[in-house]
């Protein structure tokens, strides 16, 4: 097998260049590729188009790449509480393409599953439908209108998993799964950072969420902060 294991995030992103399009896994701050984001800040690549459900917070996640103005365009469904994001968006420094969350997920799936387009009812009759093909189909006994949406193309997909093996197989933990599996399938080059990297053979083949065929580079990340965005608890 060609060796997919790289030393660290720096090596994983060594050929990531200015003006590339990236997919980044995670929902809020949950399941984001922390090590690769830090490495991108260090590397200073600029003009990035980032496909990611959210944009991090001011001082964590993709917010770090916003602070350093490395992102040219965000394609997201919700950009949350992020003062620097807001400033760059309102000043026109940052392009923002807001799309429905299911559309985002399904356009990634389409890329991984070799479907050039998908149809979704999300956004029909709204400004999201502007300039897009609208077509009627019958589904579940009901005729309604659907929008045609294209599979995403991306140079790199950067995902975070809980466990991975040397063959590139990945297992996610709890809701840190979110967008990671579809993005892993969708990158021209897919980089996976994992909390635990194990030899091939240690993961149960029935438990693998992302087969190794989709993963080109893998490394064990370090110093995961796994910050909680909204700590909600109840008393014992």
């Amino acid at each position, binding site marked *: 097998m060609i060796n997919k294991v790289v030393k660290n995030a720096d090596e994983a992103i060594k050929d990531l260049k200015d003006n590339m399009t990236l997919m980044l896994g995670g929902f809020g701050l949950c399941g984001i590729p922390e090590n690769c984001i830090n490495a991108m800040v260090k590397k200073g690549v600029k003009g990035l188009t980032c496909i990611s459900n959210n944009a991090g917070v001011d001082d964590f996640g993709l917010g770090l790449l916003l602070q350093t103005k490395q992102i040219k365009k965000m394609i997201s469904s919700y950009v949350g509480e992020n003062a620097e994001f807001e400033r760059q968006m309102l000043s026109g420094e940052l392009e923002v393409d807001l799309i429905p969350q299911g559309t985002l*997920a399904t356009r990634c799936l389409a890329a991984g599953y070799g479907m050039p387009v998908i149809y979704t*009812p999300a956004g029909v009759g709204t400004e999201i439908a502007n300039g897009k093909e609208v077509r009627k189909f019958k589904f579940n006994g009901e005729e309604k209108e659907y929008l045609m949406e294209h599979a995403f193309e991306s140079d790199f997909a950067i995902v975070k998993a809980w466990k991975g093996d040397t063959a590139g197989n990945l297992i996610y933990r709890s809701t840190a*799964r979110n967008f990671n599996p579809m993005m892993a399938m969708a990158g021209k080059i897919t980089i996976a950072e994992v909390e635990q990297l194990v030899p091939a053979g240690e993961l149960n083949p029935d438990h693998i969420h992302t087969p190794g065929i989709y993963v080109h580079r893998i490394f064990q990340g370090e110093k995961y902060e796994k910050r909680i965005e909204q700590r909600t608890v109840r008393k014992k």
Partner: protein
Amino acid sequence: MLDKNGIAKRIAREVKDGMYVNLGIGIPTLVANFIPEGINVELQSENGILGMGPFPYEGEEDADLINAGKQTVTLLPSASIFDSAMSFGMIRAQKVALTILGAMEVSENGDIANWKIPGKMVKGMGGAMDLVASAKNIIVAMQQVNKAGESKLLPKCSLPLTGVKCIKKIVTELGVYDILPEGGFKLIERAPGISIEQIKNATAGKLIIEGEIPEMVI
């Protein structure tokens, strides 16, 4: 006039045993607190949970286990985890029986606006457009008038739409309304102590009142 908990309590009566339900942020989240004894529902969270449980006990938060509002949560024994493509797949395929969400405006033909105010910072629609475009059964939980005293039940939405002709039922601080297929807010129940006159004053869209309108029992 109902407070937020009152609205949530009234909506909870619409929930049937065995339903899979998606609750939006705000008042909808409160609905979970009022689901009657003997009625068991499974809450879907569109970031990839079925069988979402309550907040964790202090000290037991897990950064890897959050809901669509990015809050730390727990899982019920019946829970399953899945990716975002499957999550919106089950929403589009109408496996989620009921969606409860908030709104800025609803029109008399069932259009909803709840994601964007021109000129203000736009945070995004998240999963709202997918949910309203797909769900067979959507209940809106909202205040009937805004802070300026203007009705949010309109002939036509003034804000950019989230979805068209999708809302079937609305519960506000003043009453419960069905949106008729041919258009119009049909008043079903009055909130305790609220008069027909108050409701008329707070409804800008076509209001339909037929016969005696009962006061809500919560």
